[in-house]
């Protein structure tokens, strides 16, 4: 068994320092295993979130060697172990303790988005009919595990702190899932343009790169939403029709 060193951020509310911990490496190990071993042996109070340990719940988001990743899905044989592996909290949210950040902003944002509003049922028994191909498109978005790594990497939030004017990639995906849902009837384009700041996204695709569920956030969610907003609010013909059509 070999040893590896983990350089983990320790501290409270933004203040702190990296501390080095050495731990044993066994076959197939992931970064979260290392964090657990360190908790059990050297640092019982090392704060970290986790749940499923299988990439399905999106709790253990962190930055590993500077990259936003799920700790449970980052295998040690995929990163160099000849130098310390840095593990630090996400940067786009207020820091709480060690690897834990305050992600409550995301929950507040979601609450403001217009909820699902289905059309009237298709059948007398109150059920609907949908084609699988129509479901497919939305099912991609509904794979989202809300790890918020896309929010963490987005420069509009991470560097420019536009949390009050911009909802971030996760909630464009959420909007897209609702807008493209075969049954939904609500209209969120006005909110997307004015309140949610979709114009701030300049499609650098960083969000798509870090998504552990491999959702094509930019291509399949954000760009189609941008197009719908543009069609509605900026297309001269549509504006003309609207002006006279009332």
């Amino acid at each position, binding site marked *: 068994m070999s040893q590896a060193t983990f350089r983990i951020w320790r501290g*409270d509310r933004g203040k702190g320092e990296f501390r080095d911990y050495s731990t044993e490496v066994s076959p197939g190990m992931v970064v979260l295993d290392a964090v657990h071993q360190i908790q059990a042996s050297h640092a019982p*109070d090392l704060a970290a979130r*986790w749940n499923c340990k*299988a990439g399905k719940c999106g*709790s253990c988001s962190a930055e590993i060697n500077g990259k936003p990743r799920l700790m449970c899905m980052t295998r040690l044989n995929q990163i160099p172990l000849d130098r310390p592996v840095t593990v630090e909290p996400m940067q786009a949210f207020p820091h709480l303790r060690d690897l834990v950040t305050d992600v409550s902003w995301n929950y507040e944002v979601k609450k403001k988005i217009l*909820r*699902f509003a289905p059309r009237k049922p298709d059948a007398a028994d109150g059920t609907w009919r*949908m084609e699988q191909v129509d479901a497919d498109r939305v099912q991609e978005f*509904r794979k989202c595990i809300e790890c918020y790594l896309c929010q963490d990497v987005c420069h509009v939030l991470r560097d420019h702190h536009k949390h009050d004017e911009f909802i971030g990639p996760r909630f464009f995906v959420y909007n897209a899932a609702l807008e493209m849902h075969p049954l*939904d009837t609500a209209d969120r384009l006005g909110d997307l343009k004015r309140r949610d700041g979709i114009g701030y996204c300049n499609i650098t695709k960083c969000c798509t790169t870090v998504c552990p569920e491999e959702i094509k956030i930019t291509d399949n969610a954000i760009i189609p939403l941008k197009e719908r907003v543009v069609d509605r609010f900026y297309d001269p013909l549509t504006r003309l029709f609207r002006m006279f059509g009332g």
Partner: protein
Amino acid sequence: MADFETHHFDTHQHDVLVVGAGGAGLRAAVEASAGGVKVAVLSKSLLGKAHTVMAEGGVAAAMGHVDDRDNWRVHFADTMRGGQYLNNPHMAQYHAQEAPARVRELEAWGALFDRTKDGRILQRNFGGHKYPRLAHVGDRTGLEMIRTLQDHGIHQGIDFHMEMTVLTLLKSADRIAGALAYDRERGRFKVFRAKAVVLAAGGVGRAFRITSNSWEYTGDGHALAYHAGATLLDMEFVQFHPTGMVWPPSVRGILVTEGVRGEGGVLKNKDGRRFMFDDIPDNYKSQTADNPEEGWRYTQGDKNARRPPELLTRDHVARCIQREVREGRGSPHGGVFLDIAWIKEHIPNSAEHIKKKLPSMYHQFKQLADLDITAEPMEVGPTTHYMMGGVKVDPATQMSEVPGLFAAGECAAGLHGANRLGGNSLSDLLVFGKRAGEHAAEYAKSNGMPAADSAQIDEASRMALAPFERSSGANPYEIQHSLQGTMQDLVGIVRLEAEMARAVEEVGALREKAKSAYIPGNREYNPGWHTSLDLDNLLTVSEAIARAALLRKESRGAHYRDDFPGKDSDWGKYNIAVRKAADGSMKVERVPIVPLTGEQAAIIEEMK
């Protein structure tokens, strides 16, 4: 009783307090708030992270979309057969009758299930279900369900308190009066006064070393109810899911969905033999294929074919795997082979087909085990997965024997008996989450706010802080680890009198050791402290499991004893009840099972 209003902890008041934010808790909260009362939900983790997200295969509901011979009566009979007739038949009947409506309701709230060719909700095969019955979304059905309930619930005016753990339930005389909790972030105590409490706290998987459960599943609902005076039932029945990952070591126990077998995956030993054909129990012989060709046709929707033996109930499949390993026919890392890649013999473009049907399994093995399931067999072995036992509740209202205390989902007992069928947990949490929420709201409307007991609050908060008072002591992680070893090795899939007796002793010794636990650091987001606080619940449920298993001197469902390998018809008339005696000791005794109605008996007879 001291005047509560003078107490110094932050205090909240609600009509209904829900403990747990998995499927059962969210469904209960949605229903209670629809009943017009003020509701709070406390969850140990962030919202949407509960173990329901791990449910893969689907939700069982006899909608008959794929095979119109299906109906609630068949589902009822399947559930009772799977539970070896120790189930509460009234719960099994409500469940089978109401599951279809509960699933359709989710669609009205935005869930997007896979579709049949005519545009309805698609259903798939699963172990122990006679017809294709599981509504699903690929292999991430649980995520779809929890997200649907969460996104619906946040608009219902429910107060969510995330990362909040309950320490004890408060009582006023015999009635439930709320809960004392602490928040993980700051470690502050909070008092939640309530007229009714719904426990929806999930399972006990962390009592075992190899488990598919996360850190949260420490038997909180079971232990809180037990200490509050409720009865626990069927605690000897712990489900070991037959297919967990076994290699590499760090992923040992992570679930491999039964959906793999539902889609045609087969189990083989190291000699390439499909050993499941070697041992088909008598009560399933008439429903089970006796050759591979018929089994394959069943998975592909041939209504005249019987299901392959890989889709027998989980208890049986787990034991067959254990047998192959013990007798030296296992895979290199102590499991057996689960092969879905072989379907290329039947299906053109099988790799794409598998990725479409089982996307997260493909992803999971590719990323965590460097294995392409479309090309190679997986190595799998049993993993602690689900607790059939739990709080004894009224089948219609879900209220326990403690007035005002309700339970739903995994921490309640009754529906599953000695063994749960796959897919019946997601339907369980919908059907009984709704019932619990509805009746908790009704109870709250017809009862006033009980007083909270200051002395109880002081005592519980003082105990919780004890690990910080010491300057040295036992490491809580080590105690947890020892407990997991004890339960895994001595009260696992195959049980023996002497081993279980030793387990009871060891649990007692660990309980003493836990009293000297020491934690460095402070109360703010300190996982060492949280681990030490969870220990008490884990030790309580472990003792209950071991004592109940010792008492049941037969093998039935998930409970298998090498010293009593057969079923005993006399034991088939009893459940085992666990209660806290007046002197604080644990009392374990037999109680008669709930008798079938004439109609229920006729259905079971007809479906035999």
